[in-house]
């Protein structure tokens, strides 16, 4: 595997992880805000 491929692969995995983690965090925060109201 070449260096550009490794860079692209890291970007891919980062996008997946950030997408999952931040969506969970934001939905949790929204749910908390809703229950406070």
């Amino acid at each position: 595997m070449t260096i550009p491929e490794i860079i692209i692969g890291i970007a891919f995995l980062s996008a997946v992880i950030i997408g999952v983690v931040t969506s969970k965090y934001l939905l949790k925060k929204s749910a908390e805000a809703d229950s406070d109201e």
Partner: protein
Amino acid sequence: MSPIIITSAMLIIYFAGLAYAVYSNPLPSQNFEEYAVGGRSFRWQFITMTIIGTWYPGSLLIGWAQMGHDMGVTALYLGFYTLGGLFIFLLMSGKLWKLGKKYNLKTMGQFFQLRYKNKPLRVFTGAAVLLIEFPWVITELLAAGYAIQAMTYGKIPFNLGMTLVCIFFTLYILFSGTRAVIIADYYQGWMFVIGGIVLFVTATQVLFGGLSDMLMQVRDLGAELLTIPGPDTYWGEAPGALFWTSLIAMGILGGYMWPSLFSRIFAAGSTKELKSSLRFTPFMAPIFTILVIITAVGSSAKIEFGENDTAQALVQMIGSLGPVAMGVITIIILAGSLSMMDSMISSWAIVFSNDIVTPFKKEISPKTQMTMARIITIVIAVSGLLIAMTDLPTIVQILTRVYQGIVQFFPAVFLGLYWKRGNKVGAWGSIAVGLALVVYFAWTQPDYVPFLDGMQGGLLAVGIGAVIYFVCGFIFKKDEGVDRLFDDMKTNDNQIIREEMK
């Protein structure tokens, strides 16, 4: 390791992440309000990614990339209209959201019934917008078919790939609704932001030695690829000097008239969330589209890319870096197609049950409404697939033609939000005359009109429609209750929420 194993493993990782993001959160009980507008509860980060997702359809990397390869920077019109469309979004979304919250609106047809006090206009609009937006599904299926063929290195043929994707997408949409669609858009948005930027920047660097070197190689082939039309570049024809400007204007006016985007405005938690979503989108959405198109223009510099079919030039160019790059670009295409198709089909299902059936049958339970929405999803998916398998014009040609239809709703929506004197006669007149002219031009000169110096017939039609709307506004009286609606649009969110709670 075989390249197909790598690309398939990446696809599995991607969709596993998507499934986890959507289904690991407790979904509220499924009622039609929840299915249609996600409970009107989403924060600006979600709305931002939703907007980015809509400007990043799968067809961007196939259809517009083909235009970039064949016609050079002409395809950059997409970046300009993306930006202009966001300005229109800014001007109308706050007003629409307030009316939506107060009067429980979900669709453009419902807005028309409220604003113009005319039920037939709601039904006509519901049916018309469905027919006009339908070809998008076909273009997204075509893009997804190309992606599957590319990522399996031809092992899965185009039509089979398209069918598999269609089945998967339909099952997903059947069991999701707007909440899941918006969460999925958010997740996918990160792939466009991180995966997309890294992929295209790396590709230009590795294959050409950088962006400027790439463009110099394109210039050596022929400066016309780097020249704004100059109207002799539309697939070998010479439309006229107004063609390019007309494409941009149509996109700006029509961009937020699509039912799939219109109903997204109602999914936001407040007008503040809508406005906050515009912190980033005016920078991000055009950057992505321009990056993709410039890279696609670069693909014309090497003869081996797009040798047999120029629609595949960009994918072949990126795929030449190796299987990981091929995996990312095909995932971006599939994600883009899924994000467009899920938002379109779910919003059409809502428009159909809400605007076409509900006005005639009042005693309809939310459960029946949802069943109907699901049946329409299957009908749209199957018919889209069958049409996608026939001989069709290029993806961009299909899309520029349907834009001419949807833009005819602009005067009645936009002017209806800003001008009290606009009335139902003007709304009917502008939409009916505009669509009639578009149908005429669709038969005679669907892509551009030579005697208008290359302008598209749809732009002339919307201009005439706007004049009709104004003239009727001065001739006929205001619609009943319009003053109250304008007062509602001036109130703040909290006041509307308080009234709703009472």
